[in-house]
C-alpha cells in the first residue's frame, strides 16, 4: 500500500526576527486523521511556526507543501483559502454576535453574488441552519443558540471557536493551547472535540503544555527547543519522561 503524501509538510523552515533566530531548519509532516502535538518550552518556536503556517508571518527560507505541492501563504485569508484553519489562543470570537454569526463572520453566506461581498445581503437563516448542523454533528451543547457568545462559559466559547474552524477546514486545523484557560470538565469536552476532528479526517496540530492530553490524543509529537526540532516520537506513558527531558533540554 502506498501512503499518500502528508497533507501538510514543512521543509527546512527558517525564520529570523532581527537578531533572534526563531526557527532553525525545522521540518515536520501532518497527516490526515492524525493529531500532531507540537511541544516545547516558552520561546521554543511553536507559536512562530504556527503563525507561519496560518499566514501571519512568512518563512524566510524553506517551503510549505500542501498535499505535496509547494504553496505560498501570504495572509490569514490565504491560509483559509488553502483549507488551513487556526483556533487562536484568544479565540478571536465576537462577543456581541451569536454562535452562528461568529461562524460566518468574514465569510458570510450572502447574495447576490455579482455584488462585492460587503454590499451583499446576509442569508441569516441559511447560516443559522448550517451552524446548528455543525454544532449538532460535533455534539456541542449550547444553552441558547440565539444568545451572544458573551453570555457563554469559557468551555462553550472554546467549543464554538473549534467548531467554527471545522466548518471551513478542509485540510489542517491548528489549535493553540485550546485547554489552557479551562477547568477539568470543560477541557474534557474540548479534547473530545479534538478527537472528533481527527475522526473526521482532518490533520490536527495541537499545541499544549499538558502531557496527559498529549499522551491521550497525539499520534505523534514534535518537540522544539530554541528554534530547532529536537525530537519526534509517538507519545506513550513509557516515554513521557523522555519527552519532558527533550522539552526542557536535560539529557536523560
Amino acid at each position, binding site marked *: 500500500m502506498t501512503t499518500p503524501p502528508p497533507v501538510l509538510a514543512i521543509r527546512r523552515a527558517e525564520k529570523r526576527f532581527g537578531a533572534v533566530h526563531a526557527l532553525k531548519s525545522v521540518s515536520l509532516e501532518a497527516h490526515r486523521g492524525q493529531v500532531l502535538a507540537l511541544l516545547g518550552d516558552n520561546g521554543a518556536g511553536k507559536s512562530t511556526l504556527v503563525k507561519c503556517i496560518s499566514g501571519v508571518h512568512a518563512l524566510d527560507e524553506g517551503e510549505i507543501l500542501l498535499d505535496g505541492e509547494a504553496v505560498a501563504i501570504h*495572509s*490569514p*485569508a490565504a491560509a*483559509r483559502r488553502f483549507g488551513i484553519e*487556526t483556533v*487562536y489562543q*484568544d*479565540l*478571536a*470570537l*465576537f*462577543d*456581541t*454576535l451569536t454562535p452562528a*454569526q461568529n461562524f460566518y*463572520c*468574514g*465569510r*458570510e453566506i*450572502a447574495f447576490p453574488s455579482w455584488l462585492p*461581498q*460587503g*454590499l*451583499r*445581503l*446576509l442569508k441569516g437563516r441559511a447560516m443559522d441552519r448550517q451552524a446548528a448542523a455543525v454544532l449538532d454533528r460535533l455534539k456541542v*451543547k449550547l*444553552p441558547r443558540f440565539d444568545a451572544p457568545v*458573551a*453570555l*457563554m*462559559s*469559557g*468551555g*462553550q466559547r472554546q467549543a464554538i471557536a473549534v467548531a467554527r474552524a471545522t466548518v471551513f477546514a478542509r485540510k489542517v486545523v491548528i489549535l493553540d493551547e485550546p485547554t489552557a484557560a479551562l*477547568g477539568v*470538565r*470543560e477541557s474534557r469536552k474540548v479534547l473530545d472535540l479534538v478527537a472528533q476532528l481527527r475522526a473526521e479526517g482532518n490533520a490536527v496540530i495541537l499545541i499544549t503544555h499538558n502531557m496527559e492530553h498529549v499522551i491521550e490524543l497525539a499520534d505523534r509529537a514534535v518537540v522544539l527547543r530554541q528554534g530547532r526540532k529536537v525530537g519526534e516520537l509517538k507519545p506513550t506513558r513509557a516515554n513521557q519522561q523522555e519527552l519532558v527531558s527533550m522539552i526542557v533540554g536535560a539529557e536523560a
Partner: protein
Amino acid sequence: MGRTVVNVADERPDIAADAASERTSGGSALIALSLRLLSIGPLLILVLLAGTIGLLTPAFLTPGNLGNIVAQTAVIATVAIGQHLVILTRGIDLSVGANLALATVIGSLVFRQVDSAALVMAAMALSGALVGAVNGIAYVYGRLPHPFIITLATLSICRGLALELAVGHTTMRGMPEGIAALGRSTSFGLPSSFFVVAGVAALVLVMAKAMVWGRWIYAVGGQPEAAVQMGIPVKGVLVTTYVLSGLCAGIGAVILAGRTEAGSPLYGNLLELDTIAAVIIGGASFLGGRGHIGHALVGAVMIGVIRNALNLLGVDVFFQMIAIGLIIVLAVEADVLRNWLEARARVLQAARAP
C-alpha cells in the same frame, strides 16, 4: 450546621444538584431580566419623561408642540445616525458640527450661482461625505492610534474654511425653494424633515442589519484583532463608516438650511457633543460593537424633549445642560452594569454546564 448540609449532599446528591441548578437558573433568569430591562431602559425613560412632562404642562402634548420637537430634533437625529455608526466601530467623529456648517456655506455659495435645489443638495451632501472621507483615510492610512485627533483637526479646518468661504464671513440668507419647502411644509401633520430622518434611518437600518458590511461594522468595533484574523477588510469598513458619518452631516445641513433658509459658518456649534450624547443616552456602548439605530434616535428625541420641556416650564438653560449631563452619567453607568451582568451570566453558565 455546615456539616449537616454536607451530609445531606453526600447522601442525596440528586437533591443537592437540583438545589444548585435551581439557584443558578434563578440567578440567570434574574440576569436575563435585568439585561432586557437595560436594553429597553432608554425608551422606557423617554416614555415616562414625556408622560410626566405632559401632566405638568398641558402645552407639551399638543400636535403643534410635538411637531416643533420633531423639527428641532431632525438635525441632531440625522447626524447622530452617522455618529452611531462611527461609535459602533469604537471611533468618534468630532468634526460633524463644523462639517455641517461648511456644507451649508458651500450650499449657499452654489445657490448664488444656480437656483437649483437638486444641485445645492448634492453639493451639501458631497461636501459632507468628502470631509468624512478625509477623516477616514487620514485615520486608517495615516496609522493614527485613535480618530479623536484627526476629527478634532478637521473640526478646526472645516470651521475655519466655512468662515473663510462665507460671503462676509457670516450667515448667507436664501435657499432654493425646494430646500426651503423642506423646513416649512408638513405632510400628514408632520414636518417634512421627519420623513427625511425616517428615510435615512430606514436606509442605515438595512445597511447595518441586513448587509454584510453592517455585520463587519459590529465585528470591527467589537473585537478589532479578531476582525483582522477573520479576514474582514477592516480598513475599508472604517473608511466607509466615516464617509457615511460625513454624509449624514451633509444631509443634516440640508435640513437645517431648509428650516432657516440660510447657510452659515456658525451652524452646528457643539453638534458633535449633542450627537455623541444622543448615541450614548440612547443606550449604545462607548466601547464599540454594540448598539443600534434605535439608540441614536431615542437619544436624539430625548435631548429634544428635555430642551423643549424645560423651555415650556420656564427652566433656565443651565439646567438643561445639567439634566443632559446627568443622563449621560446614568447611561454610561448602565453600560458598565450591563458588562458586569454579562460576566456574571458567564460564571453561572460555567457552573451549570453538565
